[in-house]
């Protein structure tokens, strides 16, 4: 019931988001057809606006947009006039999903063990080294990591391609560059979680009962310790799956992240609103999934 309610609430939420995105992008100065060169006559601009209904009052435009949306039509891009927003999503989203999912796997695959390991070796040199690496990963932004990775593995060592998105080999560098920050973040969250959980009473009790340290850490502490990671992974996955502007730009990956950013610079109204909605849907779905995962991981959490 609870999750059903959440789903029902999501609909008006999406409506509000679409209205806000629609209003904000229309409020921004300039329009999609403003160019450095003005057209040869004012009528040309009038024709353009008429074709895409930009000459109508904004509430009417919004109603028209909602009407199309009800049919699953996100409208035509005003910048890429041969493409619909549906085209852009259909072509870009699978690429961003793949990149994001792989980066998520990378972040989890490195972050969780590292966090566990540093917590288990708390205060020793392994902890310091590991925590330092995690901190470094969090602090160095993608636009620094990516060129460094390219320089090392593509240009100097020539092991991997410098850019583009054609084969699994092409994916290694962008996935690492994108996932590294999150790996560091997860390692830190896991470590914190482990240390907090280790102070719980049930751990003391278990230890008093004579449970082996390793079993204790794996079976009991870790399970509670990953909870902050789980709640963080919802928004993180939403971020990863909807594409990264910087990584897609540097590696020239045909994903959706570039559109998400450029569309607002281009005042590409339909694309801005369409992609905002897409992002919202992904975010809502993943947050729901996180709450669901909570009930599974932590018996103390119940939703009525």
């Amino acid at each position, binding site marked *: 019931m609870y999750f059903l309610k959440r789903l029902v609430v999501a609909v008006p939420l999406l409506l509000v988001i679409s209205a806000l995105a629609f209003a904000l992008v229309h409020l921004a100065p300039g329009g999609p057809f403003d160019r450095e060169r003005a057209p*040869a006559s004012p009528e*040309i601009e009038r024709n353009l606006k008429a074709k895409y209904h930009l000459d109508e009052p904004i509430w009417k435009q919004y109603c028209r947009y909602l009407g199309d949306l009800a049919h699953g039509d996100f409208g035509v891009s005003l910048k890429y006039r*041969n493409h619909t927003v549906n085209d852009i999503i259909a072509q870009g989203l699978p690429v961003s999903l793949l990149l994001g999912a792989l980066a998520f796997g990378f972040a989890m695959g490195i972050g969780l063990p590292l966090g566990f390991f540093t917590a288990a070796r708390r205060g020793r040199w392994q902890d310091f080294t590991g925590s330092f690496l995690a901190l470094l990963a969090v602090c160095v932004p993608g636009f620094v990591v990516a060129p460094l990775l390219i320089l090392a593995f593509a240009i100097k060592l020539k092991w991997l391609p410098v*850019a583009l998105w054609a084969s699994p080999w092409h994916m290694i560098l962008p996935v690492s560059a994108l996932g590294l920050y999150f790996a560091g973040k997860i390692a830190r969250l896991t470590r914190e979680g482990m240390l907090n959980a280790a102070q719980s009473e049930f751990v003391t009790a278990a230890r008093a009962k004579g449970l082996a340290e390793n079993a204790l850490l794996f079976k009991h502490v870790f399970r509670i310790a990953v909870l902050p990671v789980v709640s963080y992974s919802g928004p993180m996955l939403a971020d990863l799956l909807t594409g990264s502007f910087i990584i897609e730009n540097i590696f*020239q990956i045909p994903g959706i992240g570039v559109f998400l950013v450029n569309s607002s610079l281009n005042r590409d109204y339909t694309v801005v609103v369409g992609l905002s909605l897409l992002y919202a849907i992904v975010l809502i779905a993943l947050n729901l999934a996180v709450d669901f995962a909570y009930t599974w991981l932590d018996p103390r959490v119940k939703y*009525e």
Partner: protein
Amino acid sequence: MVFSERARRFFPRARFCFFAAVFFLLAGPFFGCTPHEPPADITIINGAEPESLDPAIITGQPEFRIVIGLFEGLTRLDPRTARPIPGLAKSWEISPDGLVYTFHLRTNLVWSTGEPITADDVVYSWIRSLNPATAADYAGQLFYLKNAEDFNAGKIKDAAQVGVRALDKFTVRAELTHPTAFFLDLCAFPTLYVVPRQTIEKYGDRWLMVRPLPSSGPYELVAWRLNDKVRLRKNPRYWDAANTQSEIIDLLPINSPATALNLYQSGQVDIAWDKNVIPVELLDVLLRRPDFHVFNFLGSYFIRCNVTRKPFDDPRVRRALALAVDKNRIVKKILKAGEQTAAHLVPDGTANYLPPDGLDYNPDLAKQLLAEAGYPGGKGFPRLDYIFDTVKVDEDIAVELQQMWRDTLGIDMELRGLEWKVYLGSLDRLDYDLARSSWVGDYNDPQTFLGMFISGDGNNRTGWKNPSYDALISAANDEPDLTKRAQIFRQAETLLVKDEVPVIPLFFYVGVNYFDTNRIQGVYQNILDDHPLQSIRKIKLLK
């Protein structure tokens, strides 16, 4: 109701689903997800993702450089000089007054899908670009035809009244309002390309997604994937297919200059020919290499003065500002690609023209003029407001100007970096004192630079109105004799850049591209920086 119990029962299956999903995501690219395409003969970095490939709609150079391969006009560009040569039309006659053009089409023209191309297709394509429903930004390129502007504005509904007509299957007659010296250049411009009527009428705005797409040019469109690539294959039915040099050409949209250079260095691309894919920070190093090519380009960088505001309504002030700019310093210190300083607006080397002398760097005269205008040593001069779009180069130039005007004239300037669309809005509303500006010629003729400064033109954007200037431009456009026409334009430009100075030219852009001349042939440097695709080929190395 307790969810955790149910969730626990549910999750073993969920875990399986999760791992299955991850497996398929990982395995996807290995099996079948990547389209298996043969390698291209030539791979070119083409700049930004094309906004469209519809010749009537496109406005930018990255789009032009693709569409030039897909469709053709009555004339086409000579790959070496970018001057118009016979295209779909094999010959033409021009009436002595320069107002009537009669084009004779080749008789062996067919679409890449096999149907014949006729004079009706030409008329259809031109009318389509003018049709208000097409909403073509560049419809103005056809306003030289009789009644074209009124038809585009919806004042004339009957397309038959527009000055283009098919006399028979292979003859097209165009009637112009003025003798237009560059009309043959325009015939090679995308807005006037010949496009497939049946496909467009059947599929509307989605017509470019149709495969096979009928093309009238040397190449067919095989694939167009957003931010990935445009792939072209030789059109064997093109009238001049025997001279098309390469079978498959890939044009990649690349946004980052560093990525472009990396791809080139690692041998994955053969040519990079958009200025936006040259890493500016490395220019002085790169330009010393033999595979980097710099050439004159039909573009100017200049400053607009808002003459509706005091004290810029005084030509002496504007001249003083112009004379106080050491353009050499800007070119040498900031740009470094071998740009030429500009004392006039129309670039050197523009066809049908010889530009006048403008104002050179002369700080003493500048000080004197400013004093005459009532601001000796800059005393009493209001703080001026300079707008530019937030691009590194433009900001550097703004800072340099700020310093020059402070040092020479004692004028303080405030820099206002604006986001692109906001900047365009400020230009349009005349919400500035001075504004960074640039212009790239639409065709190779002085009219494309000088025509925009007539009173009230949408591109004037300075508030400057001068009846003698308007009269000169109008007279030049009525003059069929090219030499006399050039002289009239010269007079007009003198007024613009030497006497009245609503604009202060700074420098002329250069074109930059890179490719190894030992491996690639058929890319020529010309003032339009246009490169017809059919002449490009890779040299096969002899073993």
